[in-house]
């Protein structure tokens, strides 16, 4: 019998063009390379300068999402720099033969939303993108991680990456989630527990009964934020939920090839007795809706909690970090966040902009109006999500409540495209980063689930969604 292996090890070993040695990292073959307009231009320039081609345009896909406006598509792009970057993306893809779902395409959207919905993301694959939230695709049992622009160039030119083998950490989530507690709360709780550096050097494998019970979109929400805990990748073993999601999607295998693929994918889950380098446990039953109070995703707490007091922290540099964060956020130690007034609610991003997120949000919002002091942006993750949501009439619910229904893209998650907070404003956001200025210079972000975001929009202040759900 061969050594029991983890899911990660199986996928890693399948893709070794050359193994790691004492002198050199492993050469890892990449099955799918996703490219977007912000982190690729300098890589294409490098190819041009060195006279290189894209080795596998058929394993490469471009989209536009980060700097694209989410205003109606017939309005021209007002930001000259963004427009130039978008034009450059078109030229680069055309010149190098890379297929592109440009702005205006029916399949355009956030790179981590379109890969899975098109069926490009499949179990056992290696997937990279010049974007740290590539970890999202690990929900299918793929090894997927973000890379820098130099590495984008490496993959374009050779379809390979030089990689040192990471360590593995099992994230075991057992039990069942209570009403009002969602996948987003699971991942925020994990990051609050291990800290933003806790997973550095590791690949997470999320396992346990609570993970098994999640839909694919919920698993994507969790894997998406692995990087916020420092892990470059997070994976979930493929199972019937995975296969049911994939079957019939445009790029998924068909007919006999589908049967073969599924048979192969069934061999991927971690073997009984396989050893992880580290393990962390989360009790799903005891989780509450989570919210962040600070300026990194590790500064999170149950929504009913109180903001920590720097005086109670022994480590001086941690204390300084918290003092600085609370100053930026203009929040008081020991105060609750519940009831804190907000200005903006952002429902979107590669963490929470899929159809199930919009459905959950709309179900809670239906029949309500958002508070008059609140601006709410709803930004679907892709054009496909947008069309599906509209077919279900979800956009009417959002609009009737007073929210803005916008075109697909990253939008206020990264605030590159003009969708941004004003200095001093508070937002409840379903995105993944609450760094200083992330959603607009001087803006202040509370990260939370779509349910918490909607409940807070209705009340105009941070609100526990369970109060409203229990009333329904």
């Amino acid at each position, binding site marked *: 019998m061969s050594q029991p292996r983890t899911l990660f090890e199986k996928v890693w070993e399948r893709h070794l*063009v050359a193994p790691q040695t004492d002198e050199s990292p492993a*050469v890892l073959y990449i099955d799918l390379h996703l490219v977007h307009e912000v982190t690729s231009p300098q890589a294409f320039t490098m190819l041009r300068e060195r006279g290189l081609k894209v080795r596998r345009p058929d394993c*490469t896909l471009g989209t536009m999402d980060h700097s694209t406006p989410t205003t109606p598509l017939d309005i021209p792009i007002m930001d000259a720099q963004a427009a130039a970057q978008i034009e450059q993306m078109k030229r680069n893809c055309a010149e190098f033969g890379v297929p592109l779902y440009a702005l205006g395409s029916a399949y355009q959207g956030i790179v981590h939303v379109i890969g899975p919905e098109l069926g*490009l993301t499949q179990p056992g694959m290696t997937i990279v993108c010049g974007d740290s939230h590539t970890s999202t695709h690990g929900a299918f049992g793929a090894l997927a991680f973000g890379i820098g*622009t*130099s590495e984008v160039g490496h993959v374009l030119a050779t379809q390979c990456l030089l990689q040192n083998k990471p360590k593995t950490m099992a994230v075991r989530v057992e039990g069942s989630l209570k009403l009002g507690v969602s996948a987003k709360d699971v991942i925020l709780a994990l990051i609050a527990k291990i800290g*933003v*550096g806790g997973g550095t050097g590791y690949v997470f494998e999320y396992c346990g009964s609570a993970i098994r019970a999640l839909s694919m979109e919920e698993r994507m929400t969790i894997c998406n934020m692995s990087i916020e805990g420092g892990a470059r990748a997070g994976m979930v073993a493929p199972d019937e939920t995975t296969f049911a999601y994939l079957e019939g999607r445009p790029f998924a295998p068909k007919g006999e090839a589908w049967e073969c693929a599924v048979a192969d994918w069934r061999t991927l889950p971690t073997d009984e007795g396989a050893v992880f380098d580290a393990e962390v446990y989360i009790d799903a039953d005891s989780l509450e809706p989570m919210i962040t109070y600070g300026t990194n995703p590790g500064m999170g707490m149950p929504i009913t909690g109180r903001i920590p007091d720097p005086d109670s922290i022994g480590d001086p540099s941690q204390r300084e970090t918290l003092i600085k964060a609370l100053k930026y956020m203009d929040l008081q130690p020991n105060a609750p966040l519940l009831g804190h007034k907000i200005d903006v609610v952002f429902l979107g991003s590669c963490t929470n902009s899929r159809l199930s997120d919009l459905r959950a949000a709309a179900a809670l919002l239906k029949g309500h109006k958002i508070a008059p002091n609140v601006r709410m942006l709803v930004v679907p993750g892709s054009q496909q999500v947008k069309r599906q949501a509209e077919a279900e009439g979800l956009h009417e619910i959002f609009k009737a409540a007073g929210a803005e229904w916008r075109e697909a893209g990253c939008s206020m998650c990264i*605030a590159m495209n003009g969708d941004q907070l004003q200095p001093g404003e508070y937002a409840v956001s379903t995105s993944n980063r609450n760094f200083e200025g992330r959603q607009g210079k001087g803006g202040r972000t509370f990260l939370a689930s779509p349910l918490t975001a909607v409940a807070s929009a209705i009340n105009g202040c941070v609100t526990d969604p369970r109060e409203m759900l229990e009333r329904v």
Partner: protein
Amino acid sequence: MQPIRPFSSRLVALPIENIDTDQIIPARFLKTTSAEGLGAALFYDWRYDAQGAPRPDFILNQPQAQGAHILLAGHNFGAGSSREHAVWALQGFGFRAVISTYFADIFRNNALKNGLLPIQVDAETHRQLFSLVQEAPETEVQINLEAQQVVLPDGRAVSFPIDPFARRCLLDGVDQLGYLLNMADRIAAYEAAHPQRVNTLLNLA
């Protein structure tokens, strides 16, 4: 790329933990298609006020930082977004090394690809370096990549770990892509042995 030789510099101390790449260079500066000129955007929102005037109390605006090559940062440097622009901005300002207790994985990779040295030291050395800057801001330390050492003014040398392959490339002044391009035959053999993969060229219409 130029081979990296030993160099000495003052330290620029930025004692903040978990400095993420959104702070190193805010996203609105990423709408460029080049890697040039990003030094001006380094730590922009900490460095300039709302009117765009330099904040005199921020270290990069002080004489200490001008012409210095080594950034001494708080624990866990470079988390967050994969933007390589963070490395280009640090280099654009003149930095050739960053010292911290640890680095986020993607940042470390990006830095090594560009010849910016991510120098990881233990918590005690880290603390000593901060007190050194406080007591004698003009003090220079030397960084020797070949020996993998930071050499302090009193002659004490502190070793730092670095990926051996990246170290070799940086000492020889060669980039890593050349190594991969030389593997073309093995890559082709791998592709022949593993033919199953998606085809993104499939027309969805």
